[in-house]
């Protein structure tokens, strides 16, 4: 019996280590896929894209900056492209509205026009705390989406996949933010579920 245990135990230990490595690789692979920046496809048509950053380093207003970007026609890809460009920041770093270390982890668009934008924890921990700065951060996201992705009616912000009470202690993240004011007043009925036969 001792001989059998001496033979089996190392085999079992080896299998456990291999399984742990595989699991780590698959988690790492998933994380890498999620945070992979959406490649700009040069084949996409170039569009005048409006991005909203701070108008002044001491101001609480936003100003649009128009750049030519190749954007996808797919609304989800398009939203990811514009938000990643927004996160990359303006030429003048003083006018940045979102923290440079924040990452868009995921973006979903529901049939009723509700968008779900999932950001990394840095979005909550690195945004300057205060009503004006937190509101400015959210407004820069909503106005950029409004200007470039008309399919988005409202937006829900998650932090690392979770709903949080506030962005950095002040701004309420438990609800949704209106993006497209015209469409948001006439909510669509949810798409009918297909019947099974």
């Amino acid at each position, binding site marked *: 019996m001792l001989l059998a245990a001496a033979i089996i135990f190392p085999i079992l230990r080896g299998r456990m280590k291999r399984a742990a490595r595989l699991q780590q690789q698959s988690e790492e692979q998933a994380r890498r896929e999620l945070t992979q920046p959406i490649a700009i496809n040069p084949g996409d048509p170039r569009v005048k894209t409006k991005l909203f950053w701070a108008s002044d380093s001491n101001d609480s207003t936003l100003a649009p900056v128009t750049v030519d970007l190749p954007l996808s026609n797919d609304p989800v890809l398009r939203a990811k492209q514009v938000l990643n460009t927004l996160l990359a920041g303006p030429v003048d770093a003083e006018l940045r509205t979102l923290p440079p270390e924040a990452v868009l982890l995921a973006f979903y668009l529901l049939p009723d026009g509700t968008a779900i934008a999932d950001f990394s924890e840095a979005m909550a921990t690195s945004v300057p705390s205060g*009503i*004006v*700065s937190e509101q400015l951060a959210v407004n820069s996201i909503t106005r950029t989406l409004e200007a470039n992705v008309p399919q988005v009616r409202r937006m829900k912000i998650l932090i690392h996949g979770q709903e949080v009470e506030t962005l950095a202690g*002040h701004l309420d993240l438990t609800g949704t933010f209106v993006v497209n004011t015209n469409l948001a007043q006439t909510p669509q009925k949810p798409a009918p579920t297909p019947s099974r036969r």
Partner: protein
Amino acid sequence: MLIEVGNILRVRSLFLIVLPSLALLGAVMVSPSQAPSQASTPSAPSPQGVAAGSVPSPFGAQAQQAGLNIVVLDPAHGGTDSGARGTGGIRESEIVLDFAIQVRHALEAQGFQVVQTRQGNEDPSFDDRSATANAQRGAVFVTLHVSSTGVPGSARVYVNSELPPVTDSNGMIPWDRAQAPFLDLSRKLGDLVQGFLAQHFRGSPESAQTATVRQLRTTAAPAIAVEISSVTVGDRADLDRMAPGVADAIARGAAAFKPSYVVPNTRGGLQ
């Protein structure tokens, strides 16, 4: 689930709030059928503070009316939550607590009773702070903040952004939208206080702004957030020098708001 106002301090989940007086709702709430039009075309309150198209008081002609007597003062953050922090070690939670002392004195000089959500370095939850206000009759709520950004030496007032209308006709409003019936009054209070702040502090706007402020959403009273700029000042004394002006603006704003906000008493209630 019905919960008496007196027990609101123990409420931890989303329950319906039972306001002790339907007449209070009549002063600030519109009937469900009229809610959409009221929301788009707000009417000016009558001298008694009752909005046009409101639900009549259930207490009849014998109802007495009390004025605004209480200001619930909320120094934001506290405990392990220091709020905004400056490079010089300036902490929002400490500054607003010091500001609250002067604001309290100014309000008491105007004849208001002041209730604070915290006296020391404790950190009540958002709901507990709202519960302090929601347990009062005829109160307004003022939460004090210091920002990380903004023009140093300026001050801004925020009121909550639009909330989905409350359509329950049984005198109850959901906790998570308790501020909804009070948005117009909050805006009025906010504009008054902001006007006085603009007189004291150059670079401050002339009227209140809207923002989705978590603390205001669950407060069933006229509620504003006052945010002073900012913790990035090199010397904390620059912020301390703002305290008398902030205190004066809030006190004068509350006093100017008082005629607009009349709270009917229940029979045999507090005078």
